[in-house]
Every structure is written in C-alpha cells, then in structure tokens.
C-alpha cells in the first residue's frame, strides 16, 4: 500500500520535473499536482499517521532517521535532533534524548512532525494528545525496511522524489558491490564484535544479513537461539573458530583496535589477527540502518576481497 502510494507520488513528481508524457503508474485517483501533496497518510510502525501540512519544524529522536532526513534533502526542515544524532555534522543537535524522551522538552521546539525509533511507553500517545504527528521508524530487520523508511520520510516531508532517488542509488550501489564479489571457493568466516565483552550478532540480524550479502559465514550462528540474535560469545569459542575476519564495531564505545585485539590472551593465534584481517569500523555506521549502510557494505566487501587475494596468493 505504502509502496503504491509512494510510487504514485514519485511518478507524478517525475512527470512534473521532466515535462514528458509518461503514463503514471500510481492509482488513477491520484491528484496530478506536485505542489500540494498534503495532507498525506503514512502506514507507519505506529499505525496510520496523517500529516496535514508540509512539515517545517521536524524533531528527530533517532540518529538513523536524522541521517535519512538529511540524505533526502529534508535537512533544512529539521528543527532539532536528539543527543545521539551526530551525523551529518550540520544536524541541529540538542540535548533531547531518544532513549528517555521528555515530551515537554520535545514540544518546546514546536514540532509539526516527530520521528522516533523506540517508544519507551507513552511517547506516541502523549504526542498525539498534543496534536503533534509522530512517525515511528523502528530498527530495520532487513534492507527493504530501510528503503521503506526512507520512502516514508520522503512522503512525510514532501521530498518523495529525492527519497526515491536515494533508494534507487542505494539499490544500485549495493547491487554493484555484491556483484563485484566472486563467491568464495572455501568459506570465509567472520566475527562481528559489538563490545569488548564479545557480544556479537547472528546472520538473522540486520547487520548479519549485510555480511551474508557478500558471502561471509558468521561464527556466531552456532549460538542461534541465544540472545535473540545478539549472543555473548565465549572467548575460547572465538579463538577456536579461528575467523578469517574480525569486524570491530566497538572502536568508539570501547576503544578497541586491531592492536588491542591482538593483545587479548590467546587471540594472537586467530587467522584474522595473524593476517591483518581485523577491520575497525565506525560504531555508529555499524549500528544504524541509514543510507551509510552502503559505505559499510563496501568496507566489508573490500575486506573480503583482500582475504581472497591473500588466499589466492
């Protein structure tokens, strides 16, 4: 439903900008006007959200949504973002918290749209009580969720065409990255580290799926059923599994680096440590599901290519 709706708007906007006679693919009852797409109704995670007018004072409580908003050109409509939204650098960071949202503090920015990821309790109903439309964008379970969320923000902010461009570009780039990888002849294994107590991800998580896209095998999959996709692995298991690659998503939180990993007791015998296969990541990029997943995937693909080159040599 959302897809068809967005498709309709995108087609309309394309029509308006190119001036070419294309047959609109959307529902026939769509109003053929690009200037007044509002009000719009979006089928979001928190139910149908109706936005009456073009929002100009958006409050984003989710770092990922902030990245998406700026990527689709809605940055100048953003009034305030939460304290964890550190990208892009010109986002209007405030001390608003996305973990423990304070509705009164949010309302003080006079928002005409609030975007958030998690609702610890009454956020949605409290904003509804104040007549502020609120759009929930929970953590993505798959890449398709990312595309849907970007498209939703496009419609919600009147930037549907740009959102479509961003999504198309992401799809194309991801296709070209995964297409550039030869399927490995023998399994290339990896361990993705969330913190320095060895919390990891299984292939069922969003992050794990990215690694699967380039044909990597996850050593944490043995621990399926434990930790709902985020198991804490035993050090001795990691040493014994001997992964080809170690991805560190704890460089910022916990100060980990290829050097600190090599210094851990027993870890110096792991293939990844011996062959420069410990890849430091930006914690933020590796924990968000915004447009920068493309950079993340590229980093993974480069690492895989290097391992395979070394194996071939």
């Amino acid at each position, binding site marked *: 439903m959302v897809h068809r709706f967005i498709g309709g708007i995108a087609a309309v906007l394309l029509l308006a900008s190119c001036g070419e006679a294309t047959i609109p693919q959307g529902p026939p009852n769509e109003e053929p006007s690009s200037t007044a797409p509002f009000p719009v109704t979006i089928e979001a995670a928190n139910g149908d959200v109706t936005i009456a007018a073009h929002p100009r004072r958006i409050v984003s409580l989710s770092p990922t949504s902030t990245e998406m908003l700026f990527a689709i050109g809605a940055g100048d409509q953003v009034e305030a973002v939460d304290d964890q939204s550190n990208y892009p650098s010109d986002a209007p960071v405030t001390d608003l918290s996305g973990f*423990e949202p304070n509705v009164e503090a949010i309302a003080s920015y006079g928002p005409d749209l609030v975007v958030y990821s998690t609702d610890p309790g009454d956020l949605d109903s409290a904003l509804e009580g104040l007549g502020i439309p609120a759009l929930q964008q929970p953590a993505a379970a798959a890449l398709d969720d990312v595309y849907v969320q970007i498209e939703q923000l496009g419609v919600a902010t009147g930037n549907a065409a740009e959102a479509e461009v961003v999504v198309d570009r992401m799809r194309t780039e991801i296709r070209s990255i995964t297409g550039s990888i030869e399927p490995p002849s023998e399994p290339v294994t990896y361990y993705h580290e969330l913190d320095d107590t060895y*919390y990891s991800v299984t292939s069922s998580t969003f992050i794990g799926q990215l690694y699967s896209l380039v044909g990597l095998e996850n050593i944490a999959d043995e621990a399926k059923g434990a930790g709902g996709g985020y*198991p804490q*692995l035993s050090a*001795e298991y990691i*040493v014994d*599994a001997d992964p080809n690659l170690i991805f560190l998503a704890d460089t910022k939180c916990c100060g980990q680096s290829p050097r*600190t990993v090599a210094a851990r007791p027993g870890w110096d015998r792991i293939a990844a440590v011996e062959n420069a296969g410990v890849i430091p990541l930006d914690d933020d990029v590796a924990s968000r599901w915004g447009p920068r997943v493309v950079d993340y995937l590229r980093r993974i693909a480069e690492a895989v290519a290097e391992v395979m080159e070394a194996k071939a040599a």
Partner: protein
Amino acid sequence: MSRRTRAIALGVAVLAASIVAGLLVGPVHIAPGAALRWLISFGDQPSGMSEQQAAILADLRLPRVIVAGLVGASLSASGAAYQAVFRNPLADPYLLGAAAGAGLGATIAVAFGPSTAFAVTVPLAAFIGAVSGVGMAYGLGRSGLGGRSSTSLILGGIAVASFLTAVQTFIQQQNADTLRQVYSWILGRLGTTGWDDAGIALPSVVIAVTTLWLVRRLLDVIEVGDLEAESLGLNVGRLRLVVVVAASLATAAAVSVAGLIGFVGIIVPHTVRLLAGSSYRQVLPLSVLFGAAFLILVDVVARTAVAPAEIPIGVITAFVGAPFFVLALRRSGRRAA
C-alpha cells in the same frame, strides 16, 4: 578424623575437583586425557593437542578458573565476616555500599575515562568506589547516626548505597552511550578474564582473607553481643573496623575484576554452617574453600549452558542461589524445631 578435619578435607577435595572440571569443560572440546596431561606437566603441550587448544587452556580457561576461585573465596569469606560483626544473617559483602560504590566508580570510568584504557581504569575505579562507599557508610554509621551499634552501620550503608546509586544512574542517563558497557560490567564479566585480572585481584584477596582468618576466633566472641565481648576485654569497635576494612578490601578486589556477582556471600557461609556448625573457626576457612569451588562451577555453567554463547555469571548465582538458599533454610528450620 574429627568432624572439623573431615569438613576441611571435603572442602579441599571439592575445590580440587571443581578446578579440574573448570579446566576440562568448556564450549571448545578438548580431550580430557590430553588436558589432564597438560595440567600435570604444568603446561607442556602433549601430543594430540593443538597449539590452539593449549592456548585456550593456558590463556583463557586457567586464568578464568583462578579468578573465579579468588572472587568466590573473597565474597564468601567477606559475607561470613560481615554476618558475624553485624550479627545479621542477611549481611553480605555488598551491604555497606561496596557494590553501589563500585558501580559508581566503574560508571565514572566508562563515561569520562579514555576508552582505550578501560581494562585498567574500570577495575581501578571500581576498587576505589567500593572502598569509598564502605568508608562513607562507616563514617555515617559511627558519627552521623550517633550510635556504635551494628544497626546504625547497616542503616548508614543503606543510605550511602541509595545515594551512590542515584548518582550512578544520573551519570549513566546523561551518557546514554555508556549503558551497554556499564551493564555488561554490572552483570559480571568473567568472560574476558585474563592473567592480568588475577594479578589485580590476588594481593588484596590474600591480605584480606588472611586478616579475616587471623581474627576468626574473635568473630565467635563478637557474635554473642557487643557488651558481652567488651566484658571479655575485647575492643569491639576496633575489631569491627578491622573486619570491615578487610572484608571490604576483598569485596572491592573481587568486584573490580568480576563485576557484581550477587548472593555468593550469603548462600555459601550459610550452607557451610549447615555442614559444619556455626563456629567461625570452621565457617571462615570452609567459606573460602566452598566459595571458590562454587563460583568456579557456576562459571562452568555460565560458559557451557548456551555454548558457544555465555550467560552473565551474576544471573546464574542468583538463579541457582535463591532456590538453593530456600531449601537450606527449610532444612535448618526443621532441624532446629
């Protein structure tokens, strides 16, 4: 063999068995025969064992077993000592604000310290926090509340713990990105233990446990009552201070390397009392032996129950400890009746 010697011998045997079990059982299968030969030859890699397996035994399992043993012994011995000087069966090593202080220290180190140095700063800050927490509770209990009784000390501890926890929660809430680090520390962190942790914990544990050992006879006297002990010529205030300092030192050392592991300080001493009577001449050494064995075995469960994933050890001590404790209480109740 007297009942006392038998109990000690049993404790030694159980501890030895748990150390062997701790070395042999883990998520990575290592042939028990080869592992035993490795242990007997003090780390020579026997045939049939890969270099990787020898490294797992030497660098991961052995330090983990030793730290678990040190932590278990510290928490149990401190628990027994606290129960004596406060004459309160529910007193445990965290009673006087040690846990809250350690939690605050660790949180400050994670929130404001350089992330590259956590391995050193977090244990150190936890140690300082635990000692300061107890210091504050002791000061408050002695002066602020006017009395010298054990009750005023406990009340002081409760006040200090609430205050420090509030500060910790505030800092954590202001630095939401540190949540995960702090929580994984609070739930116990034997999963990353290495030889350096054993080195950090060992000196304080040895000093503290030896001190408690030396005063074990006096603990029997003080448990009767302050007035009675004083009439026997004992300086109750000074003895209580010595015991609190020693037990807190042991607790702080344990907390600094292992995080907060609850319940050990209550269940082990009480189980020991059921086994060997309530004189501290037995309770203290047996608490050391059985406390060490208990935590080593719990750690085996922590790393094998959902292998290759881990369960935070603090979760298991409470999960196993609480029902076990109730059973022990019921048995002792029936015996007393």
